[in-house]
C-alpha cells in the first residue's frame, strides 16, 4: 500500500434495484428449480472491489464484430436490421467506452452451437455473434438480421420469442448486466416464462426495442432502437449507514 493513502476514500455508491430483476426462483422456468440459492442473500457493502470493474479495451474488437452480416463471404438469409441505442445509467448519464457482447439465432431460429438440436437450417453466412463499444455518448450500433423464434423443452409447445442476448459491463462490478432484447408485437411474449419472469409489466416493456422508421434505411434495412439502463451511481462519500 502507498504511504499517502488518504484516510477516507470518496467512493461512488450504486442504488440497489428492487422489484426490477426476475426472482431467482421462478416456477414457470423449470431450470431455475435446482439452480437458485435457497438461503437469503447476504448484504455486501459496496467497497473498492464492487465500485470498480473491468474496463476492457478495444483490442477485443474486430472491424466486422458489430456487423453480423459481414462476417462471411456471402450475405446471410433473412431480414437485415439496424440495432442501435444508448447505454445509460438510471440517472440518465451515458455509459461511454463500455463493451457490449451479443448473440442470437439466425433467421430460421437456429443457434450456431454444438448443443443446439432444433431442426432448422444453419446459415453458412451467419454466426450470430457481435461485439461493440459504446462511444463517448453511450451510443452503440449493430447491423444484423432479424432472429427467429425457436422451440425449447421447458413445457409442451414452448417457443421462445425472437430475442437478442446482450451482455454489458458498465463501469463497475455492480453494473454488470446480462439480458435479452425483444421485438415489438411478438405474439410469443405473453406466453414466454423467461420474458414474464420479470414481475413488473412496465419493466418487461423496457426489454422491447422500438421500431424506428427514421432509423430505417430505404431499400436496405429496418431500424430498431433500444436503450439499456444500468444501475446509477451517487457520487457521495462512502456512507457508514444502513447500506453497510
Amino acid at each position, binding site marked *: *500500500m*502507498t504511504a499517502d493513502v*488518504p*484516510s*477516507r*476514500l470518496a*467512493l461512488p455508491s450504486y442504488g440497489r*434495484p428492487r422489484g*426490477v*430483476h426476475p*426472482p*431467482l426462483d421462478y416456477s414457470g*422456468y423449470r431450470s431455475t*428449480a*435446482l*439452480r*437458485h*440459492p*435457497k*438461503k437469503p*442473500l*447476504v*448484504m*455486501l457493502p459496496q*467497497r*473498492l*472491489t*464492487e465500485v*470498480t470493474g473491468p*474496463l*476492457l479495451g478495444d483490442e477485443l474488437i474486430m472491424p466486422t464484430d458489430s456487423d453480423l452480416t459481414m462476417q462471411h463471404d456471402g450475405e446471410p438469409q433473412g431480414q437485415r436490421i439496424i440495432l442501435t441505442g444508448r447505454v445509460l445509467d*438510471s440517472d440518465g448519464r451515458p455509459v461511454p467506452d463500455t463493451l457490449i*457482447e451479443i*448473440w442470437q439465432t439466425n433467421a430460421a431460429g437456429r*443457434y450456431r*452451437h454444438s*448443443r*443446439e438440436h432444433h431442426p432448422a437450417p444453419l446459415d453458412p453466412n451467419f454466426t*450470430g*455473434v*457481435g461485439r461493440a463499444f459504446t462511444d463517448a455518448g453511450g451510443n452503440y450500433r449493430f447491423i444484423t438480421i432479424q432472429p427467429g423464434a425457436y422451440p425449447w423443452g421447458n413445457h409442451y409447445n414452448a417457443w421462445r420469442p425472437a430475442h437478442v*442476448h446482450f*451482455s454489458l459491463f458498465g463501469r463497475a*462490478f*455492480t453494473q*454488470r*448486466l*446480462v*439480458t435479452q432484447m425483444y421485438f415489438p408485437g411478438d405474439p410469443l411474449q405473453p406466453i414466454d416464462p423467461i*420474458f414474464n*419472469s*420479470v414481475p413488473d409489466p*412496465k*419493466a*418487461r416493456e*423496457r*426489454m422491447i426495442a422500438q421500431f424506428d422508421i427514421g432509423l430505417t434505411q430505404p431499400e436496405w434495412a429496418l431500424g430498431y432502437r433500444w436503450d439499456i*439502463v*444500468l444501475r446509477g451511481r451517487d457520487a457521495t462519500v462512502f456512507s*457508514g449507514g444502513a447500506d453497510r
Partner: protein
Amino acid sequence: MITPSQTVGPFFAMRLPWPDGPFVVPEGTTGAITIVGRLFDGAGNTIPDGLIETWQADPDGQFAHPDDPRGPSPSGYRSFRGFGRCPTAPDGSYRIVTVKPGPLPDPLGPGEDGAGDGAAEAPHLDVSVFARGLLDRVVTRMYFPDEAEANAADPVLSSITEQDRLASLIAVPEPGPAGGSLLRFDIYLQGDRETVFFDV
C-alpha cells in the same frame, strides 16, 4: 429505469468466452495462482453450461480504474486487467489463472470518529456466476486459505452469522505442480453445501 436481467441461456458460448479469458495473467507469470473448481446444482449434479467471472485488485491491493481514488499502483500493475472469465466444461469445472490480490483498506479510514470500522478487507475475488436457469447472476467472494488472521478480521466475512457457511467462501489448497499454487473453489448454487451469495 433499469433494464431487467434475463438468463444467459444455454448458448452464451457462441460469444462470451475468449481464448485468454481464463488468464488474468499469462500462465507462468511469477507468483501466478491457479483457481480450479466445479459448479453444482441442488441435486449435486455438476453444471456444464455455466459461466464464471472474477474481478479483483492487483497484488498491491489497487485497481486499474478511475474510481479507485488512490491513483496508479506503485509496482507496475497499472495495466492489470483484474478480470477472468471461464465457461464450465462438460464436467462442470472451470479454471482461472491469476495472481493473489492485496488486502484493501476500509474506505472510511481508521474510524476515529466512529464512521469506519478500520477493518481492512482480506484478499479476495468477487465472483459472478451465470447459467441457464439463473435469471440473474449470483455473486459470491473467494477468500484465501493462507490468510486466517486477515480473514478473521474481514468485515464481510465477519458479517456472516452462520459460521458453518463461512467455509464456502474460502478456497482450499490443493497439491499442485512445483512452484505453482493451486486452489480449489467449488460453487454450490443450492443444497446442503450451498455457497454464500451476496446482494451486491
